[in-house]
Every structure is written in structure tokens, then in C-alpha cells.
């Protein structure tokens, strides 16, 4: 590869995506051979049965055509090869804005696999679940202390389900007061889950415009706030990485007309140990344990989205709740919450994720959590300082945990945000979040997290500066990126226009 046209320039060679041991690998079904199996059953120690003798003939299937037949070694090679085609936090920086792709400590993985956690059953008696119930209770108290909220439910399985839970509690609160409010205010910079969660619970969504400076202004909220509005959903710091400086005043406006304020905790990493949503007028918020509290993102989950509330919403918490019994007698699960909104999860929530987050909080402690926020904010401001002379910065002011750039300075070259993102792959980085927030044209949203060393950040900076030079000198090189991956750019339009959503045997091969 050395010396070829598409060789990334300007950065050190460490970690650059290369050809390496690149294996091809077909689909499981294309590898399948009749008679193979990667599993061995124990001997049957009870009489064999004929399903047809026990079940009605029309209740039984004859075959499972969708499943392959493979030995264990073939399955292991298959998935090991697949794994090598993924970018991952353990390989290189993954500065995906708003996703907080921080390092996932190995201890957390080991702890979550202890049989006392991983092989426990959600319906086993409380008396033989005391370790887990104690963990739940302590994690609830930790999250309440970190956020300044009064009570916490651990049940929601992800941030979006946390939002839904919070909005349902807000609905229950208003209905209890005999009020029928139909609207929820959402800033135009919000994550798509905010309006979707409000709509999923039957609310009309009112978009609130951000100011020129990228933050919400009390006037805009005041203008939209009526007795019809149940709540304002706000993300702080917001998706431009800016602290909502007027949050206290905005919360007062919403409260003065009987509304409540929902806090989207996606960006809580910036505030750990520094400031607390509960001190800012937030009535209810969710935590993304897979962002702020280091649990792995898993290629798309599982996450966990606990919800914290002020006392005013405590009567509506989902069931069951964990209660500490008097006199040190341990803990119990209780469904005795008379005004509960009900149940959100089939069991108790994503417990394996809760165990990891609890382990992380114990590891870091008060000082360590604050250190996370400090270094995350330091890293984001460092990137901004090093890139602001080269890339357009739509709201150029000190940021919190992430910064947003755009492709505007490269308009004449024809190179867009998508091209920059794809070229960054050639330099060995997962691209930032792109085209979000929607209020910035061609946004590149970069969240380094505290996990990245100054050396890694400098490598990211050098790579982005090199891409800017390439865009001016050789734009086609950038527009054709990535060049060094197994696949060149994939045709997403074709996938959507003519959806192929499953493998099917080739009809010609009989």
C-alpha cells in the first residue's frame, strides 16, 4: 500500500486501518452442510416421546428450514471473522457524538457473568435474591445522589424507554390533578427519540427553536408555554455540546404555568460531580447507563435507561419498586404503589447492565466521576481549539463534552460531511455522528469522552487537518473514501428501494 494515492497522510501510522489478515466469509446458510451440528445433547434419561402422540397433528411443524447446519469450529471461525470487520472502542477512538463511546472496563464484564447475577431468575423469591435487591437499592441511591433527584426506577431498558416512562408519569401527574394537557415542547436540537416518545404516549409535539447562539432562550419557551402544555423535554448539555445557561429561568416559566420539565440524560457525562439536573428545575430525567456509566453498547444494545424523579412524581413510579425493610431485615420487591403508571418491562429491567454500572460507580467513586466529566470536557475543548481555524464551527463558544463542526468551509471543494466521515475511516477512526443535530447543516458531532489520551486526540486532529488539505487538493480522493476497508461505500438507496431482508436459497441451485 505504501506510496499509493489513497495513503492517508499527515498522521502517524499507528492504528491506521490496513489490509491485514482480511478474511472473506459467506453467510451461515451458504456454509451449511446437512448432518453437521455444533452442539451435543446429554443422553435422554426419560422415555422418548413421539410429539405426534402428544400434540394435535396440525400443532406440530415438520422442519425448520431457516436454520443452518454447522460444526462448532465453523461457527467459531464464522463469527470470529465477522468480528474483525467491526470498528470498536477497544480498537480505536469511536468519537460518535451523543453516544458517549467511553472505554468499557473488563472488570464489569467479569462481574456481570458471576452466576449469582447471570443465572438468577426474576421470579425467584425475594428471600433468596437479597444480593441483587441490595444492589438495586444502592444503585438507585447512587443515581439519585449524582443527579439530585429524589427517587429512581431502574426498570426502563434503554434511554428511549426511560423517556416514555417519564412522559407517562407526567401524564399521570396531570390527570391526577384533573388536567387534560395535550402538548409536549421539544427543542429543535433534540434527539429524535424525544418527539417520538411524546407522540407514542399520545401527545402533540411543539418544536421550540434554539437561539442563534445554539441554546434555548426563555422568550421562546415563554411564547409556546400554555396551560395546554404538559412538559418541556430538554437535553442539557444540549446536542451542540452547549450548557443550557437559562435552564433555571426556563424551568420557572414551565412550572409557573403548571408544566413539568423532563431532562434527557444522554449528555450527563459532562456534569458528573460538577452539577446536578435536580438542582436546575428538572422534575424527571433518564440516565443512559450505556453512555455515562460505561456499560458496553453491544453493537446496538442492550442499554439501560433508569429514570429519576422529584418527590412530586414518586407516586407514579413503575412497579415493582425495591423497598428496604425496617430493622435491617433486607429488601423486598413491592407492587404497592397505588398511582403507578404500571409496568414497562416484562421483568425488572436490564439487570446485567445495572450490575456493570454499579460496579463502575463503586470503582470511580465521587472523585473519579468528577474526573470523568473534567477530562471529557477538556478533551472536547481541546479538539475544538485545534480544529476551529480549519473547520467551520456553527456556534463557536466553549463547549462541554462534545463539539459540533460543519462542512461549510469545504463547500467549494464539493466535499461534504459524509465524505469527511468516510475518509476518517481510512485514518483508523470511527466517524463522528453526522448530520445531527438537524439545526446545523452538514453537522459533524464529535464526542471524544475522557477515555482518549492527548496522543489519540492529536492523531484525530492531524487526520482531520489532513482531510481538509486533501479536500482542497484532491477532492475525488475524499469523495471516494473509504479506500482501505473491506467494502467501499455501500449503496443504501438500493437497499431501501428493493429491500432484501433475509437470505433465501438460490432457486437455480435446486
Amino acid at each position: 500500500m505504501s506510496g499509493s494515492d489513497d495513503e492517508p497522510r499527515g498522521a502517524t501510522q499507528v492504528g491506521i486501518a490496513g489490509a491485514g489478515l482480511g478474511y472473506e466469509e459467506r453467510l451461515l446458510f451458504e456454509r451449511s452442510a446437512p448432518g453437521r451440528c455444533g452442539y451435543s445433547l446429554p443422553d435422554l434419561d426419560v422415555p422418548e416421546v413421539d410429539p405426534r402422540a402428544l400434540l394435535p397433528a396440525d400443532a406440530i411443524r415438520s422442519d425448520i428450514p431457516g436454520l443452518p447446519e454447522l460444526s462448532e469450529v465453523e461457527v467459531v471461525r464464522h463469527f470470529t471473522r465477522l468480528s474483525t470487520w467491526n470498528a470498536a472502542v477497544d480498537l480505536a477512538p469511536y468519537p460518535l457524538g451523543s453516544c458517549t463511546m467511553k472505554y468499557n472496563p473488563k472488570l464489569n464484564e467479569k462481574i456481570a457473568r458471576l452466576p449469582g447475577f447471570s443465572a438468577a431468575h426474576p421470579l425467584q423469591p425475594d428471600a433468596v435474591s437479597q444480593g441483587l435487591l441490595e444492589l438495586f437499592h444502592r444503585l438507585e441511591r447512587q443515581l439519585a445522589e449524582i443527579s439530585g433527584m429524589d427517587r429512581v426506577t431502574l426498570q426502563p431498558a434503554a434511554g428511549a424507554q426511560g423517556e416514555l416512562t417519564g412522559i407517562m408519569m407526567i401524564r399521570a401527574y396531570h390527570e391526577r390533578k384533573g388536567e387534560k394537557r395535550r402538548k409536549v415542547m421539544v427543542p429543535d436540537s433534540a434527539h429524535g427519540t424525544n418527539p417520538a416518545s411524546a407522540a407514542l404516549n399520545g401527545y402533540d409535539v411543539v418544536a421550540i427553536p434554539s437561539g442563534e447562539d445554539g441554546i434555548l432562550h426563555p422568550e421562546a419557551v415563554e411564547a409556546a408555554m400554555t396551560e395546554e402544555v404538559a412538559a418541556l423535554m430538554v437535553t442539557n448539555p444540549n446536542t451542540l455540546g452547549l450548557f443550557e445557561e437559562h435552564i433555571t429561568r426556563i424551568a420557572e416559566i414551565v412550572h409557573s404555568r403548571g408544566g413539568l420539565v423532563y431532562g434527557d440524560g444522554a449528555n450527563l457525562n459532562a456534569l458528573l460531580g460538577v452539577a446536578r439536573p435536580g438542582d436546575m428545575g428538572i422534575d424527571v430525567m433518564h440516565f443512559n447507563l450505556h453512555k455515562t456509566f460505561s456499560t458496553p453498547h453491544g453493537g446496538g444494545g442492550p442499554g439501560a435507561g433508569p429514570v429519576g424523579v422529584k418527590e412530586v412524581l414518586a407516586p407514579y413510579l413503575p412497579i415493582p419498586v425495591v423497598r428496604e425493610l425496617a430493622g435491617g431485615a433486607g429488601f423486598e420487591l413491592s407492587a404497592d404503589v397505588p398511582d403507578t403508571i404500571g409496568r414497562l418491562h416484562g421483568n425488572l429491567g436490564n439487570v446485567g447492565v445495572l450490575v456493570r454500572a454499579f460496579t463502575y460507580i463503586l470503582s470511580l467513586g465521587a472523585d473519579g466521576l468528577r474526573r470523568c466529566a473534567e477530562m471529557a470536557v477538556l478533551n472536547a475543548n481541546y479538539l475544538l481549539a485545534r480544529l476551529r481555524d480549519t473547520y467551520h464551527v456553527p456556534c463557536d463558544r466553549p463547549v462541554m463534552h462534545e463539539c459540533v463542526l460543519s462542512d461549510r468551509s469545504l463547500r467549494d471543494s464539493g466535499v461534504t460531511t459524509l465524505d469527511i466521515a468516510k475518509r476518517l475511516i481510512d485514518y483508523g477512526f470511527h466517524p463522528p455522528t453526522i448530520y445531527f443535530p438537524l439545526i446545523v447543516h452538514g453537522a459533524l458531532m464529535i464526542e471524544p469522552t475522557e477515555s482518549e489520551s492527548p496522543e489519540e486526540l492529536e492523531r484525530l486532529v492531524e487526520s482531520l487537518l489532513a482531510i481538509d488539505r486533501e479536500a482542497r487538493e484532491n477532492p475525488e480522493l475524499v469523495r471516494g473514501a473509504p479506500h482501505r476497508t473491506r467494502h467501499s461505500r455501500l449503496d443504501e438507496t438500493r437497499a431501501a428501494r428493493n429491500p432484501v431482508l433475509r437470505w433465501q436459497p438460490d432457486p437455480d441451485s435446486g
Partner: protein
Amino acid sequence: MIEANPLRYIPHTDDDVRRMLEVIGCPRTEDLFASIPEKLRLQGPVALPAGASEQDVAAELERLAAANANARSHEWFLGGGTYAHFVPSAVDALVSRAEFYSAYTPYQPEISQGTLQAIFEWQTMMCGLTALDVSNASMYDGASATAEAALMAMRITRRSKVAVSASLHPHYRQVLDTYLAGLRAEIVTIPRGEDGRSQPVGGFVDGETAAVILQQPNFLGVVEDLSGAAEAAHADGALLITSVTEALSLALLRPPGDAGADIACGEAQSFGVPMAFGGPHLGFLATRSKLVRQLPGRLVGETVDTRGKRGFVLTLSTREQHIRRERATSNICTNEGLCLLMATIYLALLGRVGLRKLAEMNLAKAQYAKAKIQETPGLELPLSAPTFNEFAVRLGAPAGEALARARRAGIIGGLDLGAHAPELGSALLICTTELNPKESIDRLIGILAGGGS
């Protein structure tokens, strides 16, 4: 600084910080937070203990873990929506690869082909297991998948009534009630017949009904008549939704698509996902091609790159919240990706033959237990309809006492049905899988019949 434990996860030295602050032009770390109004900034640390060393944290967590009964410490007969099955070692070995678990949603397909291809393989296998055309890339769990299936049917039919079997898992029913509470929907309950099956659904469906929801096998383990339900639902223009909590049954029972279901949903924890005190588990949702535009959740589709090489991408995302916002089919974003990977590996290992044999072994164990119970004085089988690996047992003594006796003998003996099916009297829901040897089944039955300590 050696004892400042959190530094093990954060690389920055004091020197690094000083140099970076200089580049930024900010005098002190605290000043980075100047945009937060002074009165909102904490003046001291939050009230949590200091950080701890790795070995101290591990010791504390091991203490908490040791205080919980689990399927490795006890003989296990408790199911009811979460099932103890053997998981081949290769599953955890492969999902422990950080290239899988420390990645995120595959937004950048050129560097996410591992995750994308695995999801495509999952979608294919679930289509085969359900005999439907399209499966999504997971929901949170079986309960929310069932609620989302109901919402999907309401959008498709533009109707707001849902008829739900009384034998739907009680927690699934609660979640359904919660999800539908803000939406002016009506939920009608289809009662249970004496043999354990739902009563014929025809009497509970009309021109306002969006969907009929049946669980297969139902909460009491009984195999329902799906074809009859499909006919009755379709006659009034409603959809049939089947929900499953024990996904292994899909390897043995007539697949929902063949039986006339329009949407199949439920919980796939049985496919290699740890019980983990209830989560994370693996919701799934599958349907017919013509309904795909109303399907919530992520979908992976096949395409080619600019050189014509096959690859996979997230697709049909105009259904989703990050594009469609308040008009999306759902608010779901993060789902259960890594659990999906566990299940995909599990299904690949067991395969077409292994999964069927395992299902037949589960059936045989339950059949042995049922036959033994039938000949044991003081115990009876209150429901006559056929079952898979789970069934109800009526006891001569209070269920709680029998379970406590079993626990003293190191057995988690099943679920007390008192709160869920009081009409059965003192009864337990018992589940047998490949993990229950014959001697263990015999011992449980002896204890339930009044023996043991």
C-alpha cells in the same frame, strides 16, 4: 496519585492536563465549566464513597452475587417467561470479543459489517422459525415486543380495540396496559377455558378490533389452537398476533406464520441468553412483507458497494425516530444487539437438527414429569390440554409451603400460581428442560407430594 483509582480508566496525567489547558487558553480545569451558572455548580463532591481498587470492588460484588439463588446453585424448575437452558461455551466466548460488544449501532456500514451480517443472519433464522417474511433486529423484551405489536396492528387497521387472551403472561399484559394507557385504546380479555386453552376468540372480536393476541404456548404452558383464532380474527378484519415466552417451542410447534398469524413476537431469551434476573433479554418481532412499513425497530438489508461486492446496511430507516421524529413507528433506538448476537450464535450451533432434538428432549422431560405426577397421590394435573415444557400442577397443600420445602432441599420448585390462576386452587407452574435430570424431577415430585424436609 497511585491510589487515585479512577485513573486506571483515564489516561491524562497532570502534565497532559496542563498542556491541553494551554492550547485551549483556559487557566484551570474548573474554568472549563464557566458556562454553567455559578449557583448551579456543586461546591463539594457528591455524597458517594471514594473510588476503590479493582480487587476491592470485585470482592464487594462477589459478596452480593453470593447472596442470590441461581440455576447453578439450585436445581431449577422455575420458568414462567424466563428459562434455564444450557448455553454452549462458544456463545459467551464469541460475544466476549470486544469487536462486537464495544461497537455501537452499525451506522457506518463499511466498518460494521460484522454486526450487520450477524443481524441479517438473525433476521433470516427468525423468518424460518416463525414462517414469516420479515424480522426486525430486536426489541427490548417479549413484553414490549408484544405491546409494540399491538400498536403496529392499531396503525395498520386504524382501529383501537385489542382482544387479549387471559393466558398472556401477566407481566406482558401489564406492559400492554401501560403502553396503551395514553392512547384511548380498549382492551378486551378472552377468558381461559377449562382445559387451559383460550375460549374461542370469535365471540370477542368485532369490526372495531385491531388485533387478537394469543400466547403460544400460553402462560400456563398450554398449546393454543392458532388456526381457529386466525380465522376468527381475519373474518372481522383484525390481525392475529402470537406472542411466545419460550422460544424453544418454535422448533416443535407449527410456526405462527403457517397458522395464520400476521405478527409473531415475544421473547428469545431461551436461545443462549442468560436469565440474569430478568434482563437483558431479547424481544423479537416478525411479520409479513406487506406490513413492513409499519414494523418498529431496526432492519438490516442486503446491498452492494461501489465495486459490486455484497454487503449489508441498516435500511427502511424512514420508519424510525431519528428520521421521522414524532411520526416514527416507535421511539426505539438502542435495542438488544448483543443478546441478538448470542441467539444467532446459539441457533447456528444447534442448527436445524439440534434445535429440534432439544425441543423434543424438553417435551419428553415434561411428559415424564406429568405422567409421574398423575400417578402420585395428592398431586394432579388440573388442565387437560397439551403442553410443551411447562405445565400446571395442583397440590394437596399450600403452594408456598411446598416451595419452601423444596428450597430447603436445594430446589427452586416452580411458580406459585395463586395470584395468576386462582381458579386452579393451590397450584404451581413447573418447567422442565434439558437441565433437569430424571432423579431431580423425581425428587421434586416427592417433595411436592408431601415428602422431604
